[in-house]
């Protein structure tokens, strides 16, 4: 800790130096305004003591000048002055002083005040260090997220584009989406679909998407059957995810004729809106992916059929648990009512836009707490 003492009287320069040195502070003592400015720049003190009257200028002007010179650095300036009227003190503080001790001063008092100011200087330095470190980490995280975004966005681009047979809506709660929706038409014309929901949301939840995507698109190329794909995805997630993470999901294959075979684990019921307005469901009968070992995993499939005019709608729990401004969840009944009405539309794209609008309306100003995925499918063969 370094102290700059500005005082025109040699005796005070000596007393102040002695007092400060007793506290382990190094001192540079100068006598005039000009010397003080030069010393402040070359010596870079942590604390300054000064008098109101000095050679070559006033204490008020000096404080103002030194405060400007110190910029963002906090350097306490303590007046040690023989003039102790209220108006002098007032002018000192207005000029930027941090403390005022009248002369002649009690040595003990000066020591205590010095210690207090030294503690403040330490605190400020600590704060600057931490602030700098935080700014650094923030910049680093932003850069990393940008890179992760770049990679993860690529996944979604490989999926089939929205059409009158396929419509995907994904809305993330955080800057990363823990839900995954992959749809790809195989060479034989059948459509492979994966709608998944990883534990939690944000970056940790979306990382698991990478290996799943790879496995999924490999399966499209190799024309692997659905139960084999379920086994593969479960195996890869079981081996890479920590034990508190998993992925709920539907894996589904729809033939050109509308025949559906599917594997479901940990997902809410998916809806089939029949052409006549009635409902049928796909149900998850398994534990989510990434929990069970190879030996315990069950890959048995279920099946259903999409006929002309039917729509299959798969939603993640983020849709059912979407809250409005009264903190009420949307829930199964209201989702069904929306689907029943909206997917009567002959255009799937128009219906999808309508349901997105309805969900946004319901949510209003309230915060989205979980990722939302809503995938709608119609059979191409039947249109």
């Amino acid at each position: 800790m370094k102290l700059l003492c500005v005082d025109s009287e040699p005796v005070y320069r000596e007393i102040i130096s002695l007092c400060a040195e007793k506290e382990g502070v190094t001192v540079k003592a100068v006598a005039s305004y000009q010397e003080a400015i030069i010393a402040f720049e070359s010596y870079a003190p942590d604390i300054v003591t000064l008098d109101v009257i000095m050679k070559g200028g006033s204490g008020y002007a000096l404080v103002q000048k030194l405060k400007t010179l110190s910029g963002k650095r906090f350097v306490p300036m303590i007046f040690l002055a023989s003039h102790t009227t209220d108006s002098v003190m007032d002018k000192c503080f207005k000029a930027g002083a941090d403390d005022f001790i009248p002369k002649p001063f009690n040595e003990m008092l000066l020591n205590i005040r010095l210690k207090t100011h030294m503690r403040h200087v330490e605190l400020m330095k600590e704060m600057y260090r931490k602030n700098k470190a935080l700014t650094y980490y923030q910049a680093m995280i932003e850069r990393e997220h940008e890179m992760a975004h770049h990679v993860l966005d690529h996944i979604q681009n490989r999926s089939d584009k929205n059409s009158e047979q396929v419509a995907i809506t994904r809305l993330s709660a955080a800057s990363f989406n823990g839900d995954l929706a992959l749809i790809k038409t195989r060479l034989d014309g059948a459509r492979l679909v994966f709608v998944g929901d990883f534990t939690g949301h944000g970056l940790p939840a979306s990382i698991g998407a990478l290996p799943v995507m790879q496995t999924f698109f490999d399966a499209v190329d190799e024309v692997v059957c659905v139960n084999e794909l379920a086994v593969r995805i479960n195996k890869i997630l079981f081996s890479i995810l920590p034990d508190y993470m998993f992925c709920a999901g539907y894996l589904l294959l729809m033939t050109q004729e509308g025949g559906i075979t599917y594997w479901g684990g940990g997902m809410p019921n998916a809806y089939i809106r029949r052409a006549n307005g009635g409902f049928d469901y796909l149900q998850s009968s398994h534990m989510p992916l990434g929990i069970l070992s190879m030996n315990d995993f069950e890959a048995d499939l279920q099946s259903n059929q999409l006929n002309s005019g039917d729509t299959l709608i798969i939603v993640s729990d983020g849709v059912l648990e979407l809250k409005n401004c009264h903190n009420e969840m949307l829930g199964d009944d209201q989702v069904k009512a929306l689907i029943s009405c909206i997917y009567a539309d002959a255009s799937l794209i128009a219906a999808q836009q309508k349901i997105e609008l309805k969900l946004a309306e319901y949510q209003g100003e309230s915060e989205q707490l979980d990722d939302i995925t809503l995938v709608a499918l119609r059979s191409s063969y039947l249109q």
Partner: protein
Amino acid sequence: MSISITVNETKDIATITIVGSFDFSLFNEFRAAYSDLERCYKTYVVDMSMVEYLDSAALGMLLSMRNGIEEESNIQLTGANAFIKNILMISRFDKRFDIQ
């Protein structure tokens, strides 16, 4: 405290009671609740009668607990409300836990 733990030595039961929202914010506390016990118990009860909401992170925490304690020990999930029971059943937690 939103997690408290009581043990019954004669019945060989450790009961973890959770109050409020069972979510990721309890991650460390929940893990400490069963792993800081001095010995392993035959039965663990996770009392959820005072849990209002449970998210997928909590399901993950329960699975992690299942992995973390002896395979012979039984874990009972008790007192879940209809909403929570539905979440547990959708994820087929009845395969690994005793849901009451």
